């Protein structure tokens, strides 16, 4: 199994290039790729979010800003340049740090949160063998890295020296740590069944058998628990109590402005993309084509590749299709449900998700034992 770093190093090894330069190249290229993915994702996702929310509320959303005079169609593409304009506005804003704030920590916090999202991408494949660095404990690494952000959130809340920020940070920490348990418990299902912590191993198991969500009712329930929990993990409505506008102004982001706030925003939407990718890798077959599982009667007539649409390039396509559908669902949640109270949030996590996820782990093990005993 190759990775981007390995292939960069491997392809230039024969050339007389200074190994130090080669190392820099191997660090810079994936870094820039990740940053571009995050930035473009934020640009597109913010626009989609605004449009989807508008349509769900019978509005039109941004309709005035175009790109280079191109304003798009009447409805969906009407304000296609809006997020670009917003990004320029954000970058040109003043970087305000309150007098009584802990300057160093306050300046650091956005970068820690951003780093958490950034590092997660390293172990996250976009397609077959298209991964920046291939771990044999990939899924474990992703779970670990996605919780780095909590430190940044607590730092941001504490250093702002603002009660709203501190409340928000504390709520965020409580919420994110709580919801990591059901997430980990539902990801353990696939590890139990496939016997792999390695992401490529998990997808390979799904290619050999079937998508994990179709493996058993317990796996499907695991998917539901995972997906609802990651919505909470990314602090999105209906679980957005850390930044509840009506109570806490903007939670731990209250005192931030300009570029640092943009970093929060960037990592928030990057986290959405990450959890959608993980969900599609673990439960929805990753970069596998959905047509692979369906036994089509006319598959023999047409060239196989037409319908299967497999391979590295189509892998990227399928990954993004699945991720975008999941992200749409997250937006759909956001504009459907009202915010939970803090006690309701904890109730859902500790009294419903964790017992069900634990039971799930036990039941799926029994299911596997029975299967082995029967066949």
């Amino acid at each position, binding site marked *: 199994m190759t990775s981007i770093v390995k292939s960069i190093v491997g392809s230039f090894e024969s050339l007389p290039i200074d190994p130090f330069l080669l190392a820099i190249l191997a660090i810079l290229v994936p870094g820039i790729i990740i940053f571009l993915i995050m930035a473009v994702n934020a640009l597109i996702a913010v626009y989609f979010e605004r449009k989807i929310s508008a349509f*769900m509320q019978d509005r*039109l959303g941004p309709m005035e800003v175009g790109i280079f005079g191109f304003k798009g169609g009447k409805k969906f593409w009407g304000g296609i340049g809006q997020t670009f304009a917003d990004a320029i506005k954000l970058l040109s804003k003043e970087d305000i740090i309150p007098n009584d704030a802990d300057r160093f920590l306050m300046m650091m916090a956005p970068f820690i949160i951003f780093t958490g999202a950034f590092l997660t991408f390293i172990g996250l494949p976009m397609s077959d063998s298209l991964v920046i660095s291939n771990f044999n404990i990939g899924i474990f690494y992703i779970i670990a890295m996605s919780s780095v952000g909590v430190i940044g959130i607590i730092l941001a809340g504490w250093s702002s020296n603002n009660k709203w920020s501190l409340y928000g940070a504390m709520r965020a920490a409580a919420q994110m740590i709580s919801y990591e348990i059901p997430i980990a418990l539902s990801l353990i299902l696939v590890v139990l069944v496939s016997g792999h912590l390695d992401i490529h191993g998990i997808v390979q198991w799904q290619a050999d058998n079937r998508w994990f969500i179709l493996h058993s009712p317990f796996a499907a329930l695991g998917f539901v628990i995972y997906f609802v929990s990651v919505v909470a993990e990314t602090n999105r409505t209906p679980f957005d109590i850390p930044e509840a506008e009506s109570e806490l102004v903007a939670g731990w982001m209250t005192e931030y402005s300009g570029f640092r706030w943009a970093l929060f925003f960037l990592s928030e939407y990057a986290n959405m993309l990450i959890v959608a990718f993980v969900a599609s890798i673990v439960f929805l077959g990753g970069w596998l084509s959905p047509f692979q599982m369906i036994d089509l009667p006319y598959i023999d007539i047409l060239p196989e590749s037409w319908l299967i649409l497999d391979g590295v390039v189509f892998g990227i396509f399928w990954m993004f299709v699945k991720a975008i559908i999941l992200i749409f669902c997250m937006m759909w949640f956001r504009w*459907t449900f009202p915010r939970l109270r803090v006690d309701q949030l904890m109730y859902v996590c500790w009294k419903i998700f964790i017992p069900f996820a634990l039971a799930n782990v036990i039941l799926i093990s029994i299911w596997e034992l029975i299967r082995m005993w029967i066949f």
Partner: protein
Amino acid sequence: MSEYFIEIVNGVKTFLTGMKMTLKHYNNKEELVATLQYPHEKWPIPERNIGFENSEYNLIRSRLHVDIDDCIGCLQCEKVCPVDCITIDTIKPPKGTDVDFGMTSLDTQKKMLVTRFSIDMSECMYCNLCAYPCPEECIYMVGGPNEHKHEIDYEFSQYKRDGLIYEFADPTDAQFAEVGGEAYVESRQSQKQKLVDGENLEGIVEEEKKVVVIEESQESTKKDDDSGLSLKIFNNVDDKPARGVAKKSFQAAKRGAMDYIAMADYINSAIIAAGKSSPEMAAAIELIKNYKDEVVAPSQSEPSPDISTNVILEADDLGATLFDVKSLNGIEDKMSRGIAKKAFIAAKREVLDDNGKIDAIKLALNEAEKMTSEIEVLLSSFVAITINPVESTPGVSLIPDVSLFDIKLLNDIDDKMARGSAKKVYMAGKRGNKLTIEVLADIRNELTGSGMMDDDIDNLIKGIG
């Protein structure tokens, strides 16, 4: 325990219900969208209905409009307006003239020209009282029952308050002329001009100043013309720099009130110093000399103290006004011109006299190593402006000492510092009309004093001597 599961089931059910509902709205057609894209789309203004059958009363209190072609200038609306927001001016043609203003749409003969019909909508209180007395029905609220006359003004919002004053009458100048309103046109135009002038009041002051300056310079050129010689004689010379040098020195000599032979010599020396001599130039200089033979200025042959003091005064005035930054435009090299101008302005700020300015410029140029003989000549020509007249009274020759050696010879000094100070001494000597030997001695003293003297320079000075 069962409550727990019922709650979960209920939760999932309501979850799905909510999702279904938002998805339904998401798929809504555009007609169901509540947003109105305001500047592009506008809600229709609702019809006003106060319950009467009479549609006249159901008018919308919108903007007043006047069909000015129908207006006969009866001033009824102006009189009736309770807030005086209507202003009307009319002009009646003088008796005997036969002007046809045409008919209104209600077949009334118009008898006068409405020159102004303005309604200030910021004062209007929308009482509609002006509409009733109008005999021609030409003033009305737009929209509503009057929709067929003038469509409704959706929002007559303006960026400035002045925009709310609506002018309906706009007669042309021809129309004014027809009714004998030329005086009115004139006054209107002068008023407009006053407005324009008022906007750039500073500009007017500047212009006045300029006019004064032009008059002065015209006078001075007149004076120059009286003497009979002009710069035109150099126009045959093709070489531009040479022409410039010649013209500068010509003017300097003229201001110094030289006689024509002296002038010719002065110009000749300047040309030689700049190394720009040519047959055309020689011819021009010859012309100047000949000129003297034909017309002898009598005042010059009989110098009297009164005249000479006059000359001094005049020359001083001229020098004060004429040695300015523009005089430095004769320097061709852009770099050195810039340096010279900078130095000039700095000196001006320190309120130095012209000599001080020239010294400052020379110093600056020397420091930048941009000093050339052309610039020297140019600058020294300005020195002549102020100094020479003073010296002319005792009768000392104004001609720069032709026997003084060429400054270029000093270029052989290798040390920049030494060269600079040597040149300074040279220029001072030149200004003081010293002889070569004196200047050389001065240079020697200066350099020895500052410890820059060495064998090479010593040899050089000896060689010149």
